């Protein structure tokens, strides 16, 4: 099974979702000065959305910095996006932006810290996903 990498701002919604998944996951730090995780295996990225009304700034700067590194970027296989439907058409937009940038699929989207249903679906989905993905970089 591949890995998980996630970002969560100080509000902690995505961190709570990842904790509920109960899978080991590496956190992209909030502070630029802290070290980035260095995944050795393919991974799925879980990322919240921070877009304004026009969709600008959807992907957190620290996630962009993480993906700017070609070695880290080469291992991303899919993205799961957090968001809030109350933001209308920019709901979970970070997923679409990362998918387009990295040519990988949006696997799932969830609101805030997710629901029980989201956790069940993502756990089962990741199991199946890694069963079909090639794990060699």
């Amino acid at each position, binding site marked *: 099974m591949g890995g998980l990498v996630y970002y969560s*701002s*100080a*509000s*902690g*919604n995505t961190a*709570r979702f990842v904790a509920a998944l109960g899978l080991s996951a590496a956190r992209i730090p909030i502070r630029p000065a802290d070290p980035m995780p260095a995944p050795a295996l393919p991974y799925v990225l879980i990322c919240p959305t*921070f877009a*304004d*009304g*026009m*969709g*600008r*700034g*959807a*992907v957190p*700067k620290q996630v*962009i*910095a993480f*993906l*700017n590194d*070609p070695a880290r*970027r080469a291992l991303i296989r*899919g993205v799961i*996006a957090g968001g*809030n*439907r*109350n*933001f*209308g*058409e*920019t*709901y*979970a*937009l970070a*997923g*679409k*932006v990362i*998918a*387009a*940038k990295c*040519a990988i*699929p*949006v*696997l*799932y*989207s969830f*609101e*805030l*810290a997710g*629901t*029980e*249903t989201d956790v069940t*679906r*993502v756990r*089962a*989905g*990741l199991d*199946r*996903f890694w069963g079909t993905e090639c794990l060699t970089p």
Partner: protein
Amino acid sequence: MKDTITPVAVPRAINWNRLQDDKDLEVWNRLTVNFWLPEKVPLSNDVQSWATLRPEERELTIRVFTGLTLLDTIQNTVGAPALLPDAQTPHEEAVLTNIAFMEAVHARSYSSIFSTLCSTKEVDEAFRWSEDNPHLQAKARAILSDYAPGADPLKRKIASVFLESFLFYSGFYLPMYWSSRARLTNTADLIRLIIRDEAVHGYYIGYKFQRALERETEARQAELKDYAFALMFDLYDIEAKYTAELYDGIGLTEDVKAFLHYNANKALQNLGYEALFPPAACEVNPAILAALSPDSENHDFFSGSGSSYVIGKAVATEDEDWDF
């Protein structure tokens, strides 16, 4: 002559280049970029659609909007200002004054809808109804008692998040419902702008609550959690009655309640708490979800439902930070 006047405390001039909490600037930027006024929305395009509503549907719509006006008025003049003395940073105070002002814009927007679509007599009747409606008055009182001077600062934040993220939704349901049936679509566009703002407000006040909660003792944390869930039960009880009174006539009460459960859980998440209502109680009508976030289907690549390899539509995502 000796100066005997007690010195008044002078606040320090705010320096946005020295932040204690990055979230303050992040939210300030989000709110100011999202600023809008009702004049931006072509409400008059809904005049014909309004005329196709039956009289009881029009009455329901006006009543729902007067109820929303009351909540926005409370948040504008009492709720957001009541949070100011508890602010931990000068930047938080600035954000709260922005929140207070936008609540005034929201309250003002409903009057724009009224003046565009309705007769003065209909509107006056609905405002009278809102003043006499026991459920609407009860929810206002429940929140206001937590906003009162001397009330617990953290309970005030809990009440504020419940107003922003839960109490509005019995009302927001209706324009989303009309929009899903291609009615009052411009009005729905305006309401979506309000919903977007309230989402940032609930998120931010909930975030500040979580930061303050971290500094409390375990016993106090437990007390506040009990308080939050008890208040949610009380408010839900009032909302269920308010919803039945409004929506029984058009047979939508149960549909609205699913939307209430879903939003109650999201309000609790803004405070950092777990859900109260089980998934089966939160199955919101998909047409309402689609009206909330048009063009953004829920991606579920895993279940094979819905489109997935979305190599997203071009949106304004230009960002100089990307290196590839």
